[in-house]
Each structure stands twice: as C-alpha cells, then as structure tokens.
C-alpha cells in the first residue's frame, strides 16, 4: 500500500528520531558526563546531533523516491 508507506516512513522517522535523539542524548549525557564534565552542551549537542541525524534520515527517507541515481542516468 503506497499510502501506508508515508506512515511507515514517519514511523521510522520518529522511531529513528527517537533513537537518535535518545542516543544523542544519551551520548550527550555520556559525553557530557564523561567528557565534558556535565556540561550541557554535549547533551544538546548529542540531542541535536541525534535530532539532526534523525531529521536528515527522515528527510532522506521521505526523499528517497525522488532521488535519481547515477546508474539510472547512465541507463537513460
């Protein structure tokens, strides 16, 4: 079902975002804790990185059908 694809994508995005954010957070926390003496920037950073990564993934995931591959152009 093509209409379910978007939903799935969003699910994945969210899931991914969650994971990434969480991971980022976590890493951030970790890093923050570990490395950065409880600074908040790694958490932000991590979370942001996570979020950004998630965003980017989500976007890519959502963009994926429109992407033109080099091999396709070659085939043309």
């Amino acid at each position: 079902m093509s209409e379910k694809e978007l939903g799935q994508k969003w699910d994945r995005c969210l899931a991914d975002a969650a994971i990434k954010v969480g991971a980022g957070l976590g890493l951030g926390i970790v890093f923050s804790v570990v490395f950065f003496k409880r600074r908040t920037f790694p958490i932000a950073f991590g979370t942001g990185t996570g979020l950004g990564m998630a965003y980017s993934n989500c976007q890519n995931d959502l963009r994926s059908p429109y992407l033109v591959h080099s091999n396709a152009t070659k085939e043309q």
Partner: protein
Amino acid sequence: AVNLWIMFFFFLSSQNCLCGKVPVHPLQHCRRYTSLQIKFGGGLGGTILYAKWDPKFRANVEKSVPYSDQLFEMTLGPPPPPFIPMQKKPVKAEPLQISSVSEASKDSKQPKPKSKAKEKQPEPAPVDPKPAVEEAPALPPQTIEAEECHECASHEPAVKERPGEEVAARLAQQDKAEQDCCMFSALSFNLEDTLGFSAKLTLQAIGAQEAALTAIGTHTHRLREAMDSEDPPDKKSAQWRELEDALSERTRAVDQAGQSLLQAKEQLEKLRVVINGAKESKIEAARPQILAAEENLHSMIVDLDKVVTKVQAAQTEAKIVSQYSELVNEAKVQFQKELSSITPEVQANWKGLTGKLSADDLNSLIAHAHRRIDQLNRELAEQRVREQIRIEAALEQQKHEHQRAVDSAVDKAIQHNHEQLRLEQEKKMQEVREVMEAEMRTQLRRQAAAHTDHLRDVLKVQEQELREEAQEALSSKMMEQETQHRRLAQEQLDSFTLDMNSAYARLKGMEEAIDSHVVAEEEARKAHQLWLSVEALNYTLKTAAADAPTEPLEGAVRTIKESCAENEFAQALATALPDESLTRGVYSEASLRARFYGVRRLARRVALIDETRNSLYQYFLSYLQSILLFEKEQEAPPTKLAAQDLDTFKLLAYATYSIERGDLELAAKFVNQLHGESRRVAQDWLKEARLTLETKQVVSLLSAYANAVGLGTTQAP
C-alpha cells in the same frame, strides 16, 4: 309308237278341221277356245298313251313333271316293277344248277324244315336198300326219282324263297360288312379256311362221285352181264351175288358220294356265303383273295358238276339198265311167282335161289323156263313188231332226254362260262383296278408331291410373311412396351428421385435445422455457460469483503476460458484481465472508496511535496496547508479540465465528488492527475482502482457479451 303318234295327229287335225268347218254360231265364244283346248287335250292324251307304251318315257315324265306320276297312276295304273338286278341271277342260277342234280343232292340254302325233310328223305334212301334187295334196285331209283320230284317241286319254292333268304342273307352280310375293316384279316382267314375245307370236301366228293361212278359202272356192267348172260344158275347166283355186291357197293358209293356231295355243297355254299360276305364288306385288299376264292369255288363247282354229270349219265344209263333190269326182274319176279306157285317151298329170294334149289325144283323150273321162253319168244315177236314204234318212241324220249340233257348241259356250260367270264371279268377288273389304282396312286403321289411342294413354298412364303409380320408386331409391341416401361420407370425414378430429393431436402433441412438447433443450442449452452461463468466471475467480484480483495479470479477466469474456449472474444477478454486480479483478486469499489478517503487525507497532507520540494520542512508546510486549507470536500468536476484544475486539492475534490457518485473511473482519472508525493501516496490506490476498473470493465464486457450472446441465441432466427 308311230301309229299312236299318227293317231294323235289325226285327232288334232280332225279337231282343227272341226274347228274350221264350224260356222259362226252364238256359242262362238266357247268354240273360239276350242282349238287350244283340243290341242292341249290332244297333247296330254298323246303323252299318256306314249307313257303307257314306253315305261322309260313314263319315268322320265314322272321325274321331270311334278304330279304326273299321280296322273299316270290314275290313268294307266301303277308303274311297272323295276328291273331286277343281274347280281341275283347267277346266285339264283348256281344253286339251281347245283341242286338240279338228281341224286341225293341237298340244297343247304333251303330253309331248315325243308332241309330236314330232305335229310329225312336220304335217310330212308340209304335205309331202304338195305332191307329188301329186290326192291332195292327199284326203290333207290324210285326214291331218287321221288327225291328228284321233291327237289323239282321244292326248287320253285326254294327259288321263290331264296330272294327272301337272299335278302336276309344279304342283310346279314351287310351287317357283317358294317363291321370295321379289321375284319379283313378275319375275312381272309375265314375265306382261306372255308376254301381249304371246301376244297377238301370237294375233292372228297369228287372222289366219292368217281367211286360212285365206277361203282355204278360196274354195277351196270354187272347187271347187264347178269341180264345178258345165260350162265348156269350157280354162276348166275354168283353173278347175282356179285351184282348184289356191286349194287350194294354202288348204293354205298352213291350214298357216300351223295353225302360227300352234300357236304361239299354245304361247304361250297358256306364258302359262297363267306365270299359274299367278304364282297359285301367291300374291303379292297381282299378282292384278289375273293376273286381267287371265287375262281376256286367256280372250278370246284365245275368239277363237281362234271363229276355229277358223269354220275348222272352213268346213273341214266344205269336207270335204263335198271329199267331194263327192272323189267327183267319183273319178269323174274313173275317168273319167281310162277315158280313159287309151282314150287312154294322155294323162297322167292333172289339170293336164296343160288343154293337152295333141289333137282325137281330145277326141272320144274326148267319146264317153267321153257314155257316162259316160248311165251317170251311170242312176246319177242310181238315186241319186234312194236319195236319200231317203241324205238321211235324211245328215240323221241331219248331225243327229249338228250335235248333236256343238252339243254341242261348247255345251261350249265353257259352258266359255267358265264361264271368264268364273270370271274375273268372280275379278275380283269381287279387287275385293271389295281393298275388304275397304282396309276392313280402314282399320279396322286405326284400330285401330292407337287401339292406338297407348292404348299411348302406357299407355306414358306407365308411363314416368312407371317414371321415378318409377327416380328414387326412383336418389335413394335416390344418398343411400345419398352418405351412405356422406360417411361414408367423414368416416371417412377423421377417421382422417386423427386421424393428422395424432397425427402433429402427435408432431411437436410431437418438436419440443418437440427444442426442449427444443435448449434444454436450449443451456442446457447455456451452462452449460458459463458454467462454462468461470467456470473460466477461477477459473483467472485462480489465476494470482496471490506478491505479484503476478492478471491482470486483465476478460477472463474479459467472456467470462462474453459467453457468458451472457441469464443475468441471471450478468450481475448479473459486474457485481457490483469494478472493481479487473476492471482490476487481485486478490491471492491466500496473498499476502494473507503480507502480513498485515507488516501485523500494523505494526499492533502503531502500536497506540496514533489521532487523539488521534499524536505521535512516542506512536509510540515504541506501538512500545515492541508490543515489550514478549507475547501469543499466534493466538487463537481467540470467537463473539461483547465490548467488551474490540476491542483491537488481540486483534483481530490473532484475525485471525491466522483467517487461519492460511484464513478470510480473518473475519480481514478482525477487521482491520476496528481503530482509528486500525492501521486506517490495514491499510487497503490490508483493501481488498485485501475485493476478494479479494468476487471470490472472486462467483466462487464464479458457479461454484456454473454448477455448479448445469450440474447442472440434465445432469439428466434
């Protein structure tokens, strides 16, 4: 006759003169006819007179003029008796001839009582001589004479009766003759038989007659010797004995001769009867035999007659001698009487005289004899005187007798000759007849041959003609028949062919009808099947639960494919179904409709996203747009899409409108116009919709086709 005619003419002339001399008188009218009347009367009288004189003329007139016989009978009396035929004469003459014989001759043709009487007479005749010797010489002649007289007397009645007998015999003969010609052999046999027998008897008779003749001769001679001789008594006695012997011999011989003659005559008469019978039977082939038999008969009769004549002559002589001896015996008797008067003890027996006379008897006898001699001398002298007269008388008698004998002999000879001539004539006639017959036969044969030839030729020609005719007729008839037959056959054939053709045509028609029916039924069945399968398909389409596709249409399509394998259209259509529908089935319209709303929402949300704008931000923006944009959910689509109608929201509104109206196709069309992400989102729905639409289209086509086909088949052609 001449005198009569002269008288007749005189009469006529007198009448004429009478007529001429009569003056005119008041009775002139009757006198005027007188001449004619007189002439007529004269003619009639003359005819009658001439008829009286000439019976032939009378007969002619009777024959030619009707009722003249009555007139003649009235005037002249009955006609003279007809001429007696000649044939009866010799038959009459011969028996007369035969039976004219004097001694002991029987006539077997005489009626039975007379023959019996005759039989009785010869019986006393042989019986008589036996008892009395002396009377014997006298008696036999007497008896013979008596017989003669009897016969002479009975000739006439015999003759008179013979015609009756003759007629009866003739009738009998005719009756015999009426038998068939197979009598010929019997007749010839009979003839031969009788001929042989009669010949034998005749020979016997002739022999007997000759014996009688000799006996008579010897007897006469002896008698004469005895009379003339002057032998001593013992010799005389011997002579007398011899004479007696001779007499007895003679009588015996004569009797025998007479008997045999009788038998012979009987047989001859029988033969004559048979001959006559044979003659009457008119069998030609027997003629020579009859002739021969007649000849034989005639010769036998002739011989018999000759012998009989001889015997007769001898007997006449013997008669004379016997007369003489009679006289002598008379004298002797007288002498004996005298002797017996003188010598009564001597037996007056001629035979006894020889041995029983004593001496004085002899002396007395001699004396008596001397006296007798004297007396006899005187008588002799007297006799000598009367001799002349007596001689003359005797000569006269002799002459008469001679004349009679001559007459009879002449008659006999005449008759013999006549008979012979007749026989010769008959023989000649027979010969001539045979010759003529042979001639005639040859001529007839020739003619018959010619005739047969001619007939053959004619017959051949006729046969040819007839055959041709017949052939022609046959051929024409055959032709006719053939043509008729052919025609009939042809007709039959034609009718048959017609019938057959019509039947065939009908059959064909029926077959075609049946076939077409079958075909139609087949078609109908197929259509039905198709329809059924299409209905099945339809039904399978209906089996789509909500959000679940139908059952795979494969089975139904296979059924369709199987059921109407030869229906190309159906096959094409069946193959035109998309594989997805076959394998997976299709979604129902309702499910699609339901899904559409989801698709619509989604499509609205991602309305801004396309290949250029597909970041998240855009997503957010399109989402925001979809929330913030308020438009009609359903919008009636225009008939023609303009460029501004290609907006997502518009399109979706159109589609929603369409889908709400059940027009999935239009909705699919509108959804097909989506771009970007909306399109991508609606892609599956579109696909499904497309599938469903396709399937539906095909199925509707199929069903329409099935319906059409079904309609087509169920409709009458």
